[in-house]
């Protein structure tokens, strides 16, 4: 097992999950409650990574974040280094690519919360933030946790986007799924087998957790 890649994978998956919790929850809360006609467009954009080839997203990001693009130039002038082939670049790619895995479970969980309870909370004098923390989230936590687990697990397994934006640099951007690809190319089959078995077990564990959460939802 490549422990550098292991640590990097956990960092990327953890950072992606946290970023999507912070960015995705407000978006999901808006999607769950809005009657705006833009809602369907936003929903479609959120779902896009489900069907868009990872290489297409990777290609756009490579040019969009690279040192020759306007955004890349701004980043370069701020930090002195390009965003592509760094942890930051991978994180941006990862957040975009995992948008549906977080926002969709969040949205359906928030939408399933009984509107009357939220309005009752308002009538009893709770602020919107207090309502969110004390009523909505306690009722929707299973869906939120499901979204977080799916995001984490999906980031661990990500390959195409990461390979294009990250470039498979050892210690910087080489995650576990890329280590498997690399080990197979180098004919290090036993290393590839070890890593693959752990990734398989992890994927099963993540899906088991999601199913446990899902089953519990009905029994409440």
């Amino acid at each position, binding site marked *: 097992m490549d422990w550098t890649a292991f640590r990097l994978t956990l960092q990327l998956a953890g950072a992606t999950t946290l970023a999507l919790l912070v960015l995705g929850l407000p978006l999901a809360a808006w999607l769950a409650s809005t009657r705006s006609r833009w809602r369907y467009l936003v929903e479609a954009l959120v779902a896009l990574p489900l069907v868009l080839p990872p290489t297409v997203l990777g290609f756009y990001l490579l040019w969009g974040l690279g040192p020759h693009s306007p955004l890349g130039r701004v980043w370069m002038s701020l930090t002195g280094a390009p965003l592509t*082939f760094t942890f930051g670049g991978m994180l941006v790619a990862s957040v975009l690519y995992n948008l549906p895995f977080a926002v969709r479970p969040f949205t359906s969980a928030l939408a399933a919360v009984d509107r009357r309870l939220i309005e009752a909370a308002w009538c009893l004098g709770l602020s919107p933030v207090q309502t969110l923390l004390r009523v909505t989230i306690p009722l929707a936590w299973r869906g939120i946790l499901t979204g977080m687990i799916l995001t984490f697990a999906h980031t661990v397994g990500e390959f195409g986007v990461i390979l294009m934006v990250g*470039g498979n640099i*050892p210690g910087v951007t080489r995650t576990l799924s890329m280590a498997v690809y690399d080990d197979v190319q180098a004919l290090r089959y036993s290393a590839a087998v070890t890593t693959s078995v752990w990734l398989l077990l992890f994927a099963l564990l993540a899906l088991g957790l999601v199913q446990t959460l899902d089953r519990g939802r009905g029994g409440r």
Partner: protein
Amino acid sequence: MSIEIRPLVWLGCLVLACGCGHPGPTPSGTGPAGADPTPANSSAVKVLPEVSAADSPDPVTRPRVRIAAASDLRLVFPELQRGFQTEHPQIDLEVAFGSSGSFFAQFTQQAPFDLFLSADLDLPQRLVDQGDALPDSQFEYARGNLVLWIGSGTELPEGGEGVDLLQDPRVTRIAIANPDHAPYGKAALAVLKSWNIADEVAPRLVLADNVAQALQFVDTGAASVGLVSASLARDPRLAGRGRGLPIPSDLHPPLRQGGVILKWARDPEAARALREFLVGPSGRDLLKEHGFQLPEPGP
């Protein structure tokens, strides 16, 4: 209740595991500062090694050369690294392998490497021409050879000519590196053209991302044979898993392999030291042992 608690406990473990990974320098010493969520600030890093390398043994500021190497160097590189580090124990090396063309594409986006070891001379020259590499830093370090690697699962007559073997109906898939961006793929295609069978075998070609993957396609049985680099086919792990048939080097343009130091190299002096090692006697000996031919010694 226990069912409700369990997922939380697991999530807690995951969060803890991530949290533990974050702080401080990486314990194994192989990961550069880029593992930190904030991308490595190269303008700061560039200054550090020059200032402090001489007086500080701190592993974080040790001179380090990040190498993007053509994948035909996969087998010889660990030995080159060992040889280099007995001469320069203070310099760390960090290598990634891939096809020369895909590295070239990454360099146009300023991929963070210091030294590029290509499998041709053209790409290093183009990097110099377009200002992405240090002027006059290019060098030639080896000449590659091709072999026709025949997987042990493929029954073919012993001692046949390569051109006949490839036309054998039992050869269902021929692996080569992608000629679009891998010099060994270009050379393999040139061999097929010299044999006048390029069109005939085209439907049976499988294109690998780089030459090491072409060999792996054969070794896993996905392809029957492959046109791969002689340096990789000497892998002791392949003993008993196939045989290699040398391809005469006059069938393709010479695989002259060159390198270059990139413009954004953090420590150009360390990169130059590695360049001198590669073209010097110890580097040449190791390359020769691994099936490479050598360019004429430089002045």
